Structure formats: C-alpha cells, structure tokens
C-alpha cells in the first residue's frame, strides 16, 4: 500500500474531544462528523485538507473516549494515514478496525514539518520525506493487524472468515 500526501502537524495528546467534539455525536454519518474534525484546535481544518493528506502528531494521539467517530471523522475528512509518536490504545484498535492505517514512529514525526510531502510504503515499511529528502524505516505491523488492513477492516475480515 502506497500513500503520498501533505503533512498536517499536531502536538502531543490530541484527544478525541479535539478530533470530534462529543456534542456532534448525535449522528454517526462520517461526512457530518468530518465537518467538525479538529475544530477545537484548528478551526476550518476540513476545508483546508486535501484528499490524501496525512496527519503527523506527537505522543498519545487519540486519547480519551472510545468513540470510533474519531477515526471515522479523520478518514472522511480525506486523511489517508496518521503518523504519530504513539497512539492511545482504543484509537489504535479503532483505526485498524475501520481501515485507517496508522504508523508509530518518533523519528518521522520529529523530522516532519507542516506542509512537508511524505511518501509512505506500508508493505516495505518505509517513509520518505520528499520535501527534505529523508528516508526512514518503520516497524512492520503484527501479522494479525496486516490481515485486518488487507481485508479492509475487522468487519470484512469477520465476514470473510466467519470469526476472528
């Protein structure tokens, strides 16, 4: 899986109330949710994002609530992948389950500035910062997570296998 896009840079502990405030959770329509994505710290984010862009953030991305509306809102806003130093555990599960790839890497985050263009090869485990001409290797995913992504998320995976 190959991804190329422009980076939007965020700090540490971006919580689910920032990603999608709870007051908008009276719907689970991803398009509606996307309208309010990141509005607490970057109002108008959704209008700025171009289809295929990338979020690059610090530690503990997605902490807080279990709302799957958070990765759904990010995905529907047009973001293809989130790269962070670390992820909150429920967000990590949710992202894989709905088929939003996420990457954990301190190095990539430290070297990326807002607006840089990143090229990511998930199979090879490689991230290239095309703006700065830097190449990074990333941890390969555990087999089970790879299976989830190839199957398109947990539900298609279950439908295919009739169980886990």
């Amino acid at each position, binding site marked *: 899986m190959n991804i190329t896009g422009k980076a939007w840079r965020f700090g540490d502990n971006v919580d689910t109330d920032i990603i999608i*405030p709870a007051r908008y959770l009276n719907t689970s329509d991803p398009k509606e949710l996307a309208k309010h994505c990141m509005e607490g710290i970057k109002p108008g984010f959704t209008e700025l994002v171009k289809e295929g862009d990338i979020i690059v953030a610090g530690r503990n991305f997605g902490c*807080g609530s279990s709302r799957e509306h958070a990765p759904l809102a990010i995905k529907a806003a047009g973001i293809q992948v989130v790269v962070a130093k670390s992820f909150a555990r429920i967000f990590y599960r949710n992202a894989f389950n709905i088929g939003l790839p996420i990457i954990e890497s301190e190095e990539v985050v430290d070297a990326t500035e807002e607006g840089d263009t990143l090229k990511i090869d998930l199979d090879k485990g490689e991230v290239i910062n095309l703006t700065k001409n830097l190449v990074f290797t990333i941890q390969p995913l555990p087999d089970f997570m790879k299976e989830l992504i190839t199957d398109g998320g947990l539900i298609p995976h279950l439908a295919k296998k009739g169980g886990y």
Partner: protein
Amino acid sequence: MGMTITEKILAAHADLDMVKPGQLIKARVDMALANDITAPLAIKAFKSAGGEKVFAQDKISLVLDHFTPNKDIPSAIQCQEVRKFAYEQDIINFYDVGSVGIEHVLLPEQGLVLPGDVVIGADSHTCTYGALGAFSTGVGSTDLGAVMLTGEIWLKVPPSIKLVYKGSLPKWITGKDLILYTIGDLGVEGALYKAMEFCGETISQLSMDARFTMANMAIEAGAKNGIFAPDEKTEAYVQPRAKRTYQIYRSDPDAEYLFTREYDVSTLEPQVALPHSPDNVRGVSEVGEIKIDQVVIGSCTNGRLEDLRLAASILKGKKIAKGVRCIVIPGTQQVYLDALKEGIIETFIEAGAAVSTPTCGPCLGGHMGVLAPGEKAVSTTNRNFIGRMGHSQSEVYLTSPAVAAASAIAGKIVGPEEVN
C-alpha cells in the same frame, strides 16, 4: 513465575494455563456493553459482518444514557435504532428512560458485572469494573459489533504496573483525590497499554464507591484496565447482587510488574485537575483564586450515593453562591431514590442546586449544562479536555464532590475546610 490478577483472568478466558504481557489472545467475553452513541455504529458493524442473532441475549447490555432523555431529533433517532435492535434481539439488559442510569454506575449496581469477568464496552470508562476485580476495558463500536456476533475479542495481554497506597485517609480525602494525584504523577500516557493494579494498606479503607471512582479514571492515564483485588467489601457488595457464579482472582506474590509506585496518602490535600488535561493536577491550596460559573456533581466517576452524601453534608443549611449554577445528577434511578429517601435531594434543592434525572448530559458537553465561551466549571467528572463540556474557550476543573460542593458555596475553587 507468578501471574498478576489481570493475567490470570485473561488466561482463564482464553483457556490457557498462563499468559504473558505482549501475547495476542482471543478471550471469551462475559458482558458486552454499548450506549446510545456507540451502539448504533456497533449494530451497523454487527449487521455488515452478516450478524443475525447476538451470541447471547443475557451477556449484552445496551444503555441509553448519554443524550437521554433525548435532547434533539438526531439523538432520538439514535436511541430509536438501539431500541429497535434491543427488542428484535430480545436483549435482556436493555435500559431506557425510566430505568436507565449512567452505564458504569448501573451495571455494577444491577449485578451485571462480577469479579473475575472479562467485560468489553464500547465506552472508554468501561475500565470502571476493575473495582470489582474484573478485567474490563473500552473498545470502539466495530470491536463491540464483533463481540456481539462472536462472544470473543482479540486482546494483547498488558504488562501491569503496581500502585501501592499507604497511610490513613485524611478527612475530606476521597478516591477521586487519590486517582487525580496518581494521574498527575503518571501523566496521561504514563500507563499507556498497561494494567494499573491498585494495592496497599489504604485500599481496605476505601468503600466500593471510592474504588469505582479510581478504576474509572485508569483510562485517563492511558491504561487498558485498572484493577483491585476483591476483599470482604467487594464480596459484601457483590453477593446480594450477583445472579450467576463468579470467580475471585488475586495476583501471585512473585507476579511481575513493569514498575511500582508508592504513595503516602496521609499528607494529601484535596486535588484539582486544571484545564485542559486530567494530569494537570495540583493541591487545592495551590490553585489560586478561580471564580466559577457552574458546578456539576455526578457522572460515572462521582454519581454514586456516597458522592451525593458527601456533597450534601457540605451543602446542608448553606446556599449556592450567587452567579453559580450547581447541577446535581444522581448516577442511577436507585441512587436517586436512595438519595431522595435520605433527604439528600431536599438538601440540594434547598441549597439552590438543580437536580436532574440520571444522564451523562453535561459531562460530555451534550446537554443539561453546556458551557459558554469563557465560562469556568468545577466538575466531579473525569475529563477536562478543550471543549469537553461546551465551548472550546470554556474551562473545566476536575475535583471530588467535597471540593465541588465547597466551591459551589464559595463561588470559587476552595477546599471543604474553607466553608465548614
């Protein structure tokens, strides 16, 4: 090598003799939970995976607690979807307006979660049930949909950290102060992916309500679960409520921990988490002069009878400060009824507080007390992220019910000593 209580419960539910941190397992689920926000997506996931019948009608709880009684048409539609599914599937533990309470207060109260269980909830504060000696953790809706279908979940066995509390509790110091202090020490990702095991001599002094408060906020340190070993208090709480058998697990003396922290509680003062993070914690005397607009007493953290009693003991015969709105929300119908019989509700109303039917309401900025720009609130809830209770320029200070009640009287953040 020995195992921790968390490892033992997970091993038993994966039909394994032993498990190790980092191991991926498939575990049987004793109770699966979703609410009016997370259930609609979980139902969708269940159906798109080809689900026709849930794995067990008595092992699923659907609780309409967040935006209920419905605050607007979209939230009414969400509840309608869940209601339809609950009736269609004959879900036994379905709670609607009139019987509903905040999920994490309600489930233990109804005896639906028990020691030794694996509980999976589409709500991050599912970790609350660790107070009973259960393994319980929050997941998203898709995971929950998969549990409703298969009765199983994939989990990575977490490493455990040991938190040892020593000394006797000073007056006014509650479970909330202990957990705020701990989160202040560990940081919001200090327990990321890990199990927080609460132990030490102080624990026996803590009521079950106080333990629920502590386990509830394990997620605020990033933990997968928080857990207490069951003791006589646990048994006394569980026995009259349990409708099925349960198993008590305890950590082996030679169990392995990633690290241990010791806390002396005997010198602790009431704690406050300042905006905008639950780990931004200070003693109440170090907070400075902060005038407030609203006080919320309730939630899955502090909406139990003991919490209301504590707040009422401070508000008794006093008045809420002019310019402060004080909103009290009992966690369940039973808590409400008990508080009513004890005269606590009367105390709140006489003091000038508004008392509401059980709901999550203001805790997540949903309804029943949303904040305007620039407003400051003291709240007994668990999160004070930007915009959590309303406008992104509002502020939330997290405290115990004692500090919340005292602050309501003073009109600014103060400890209970200052108004008593």
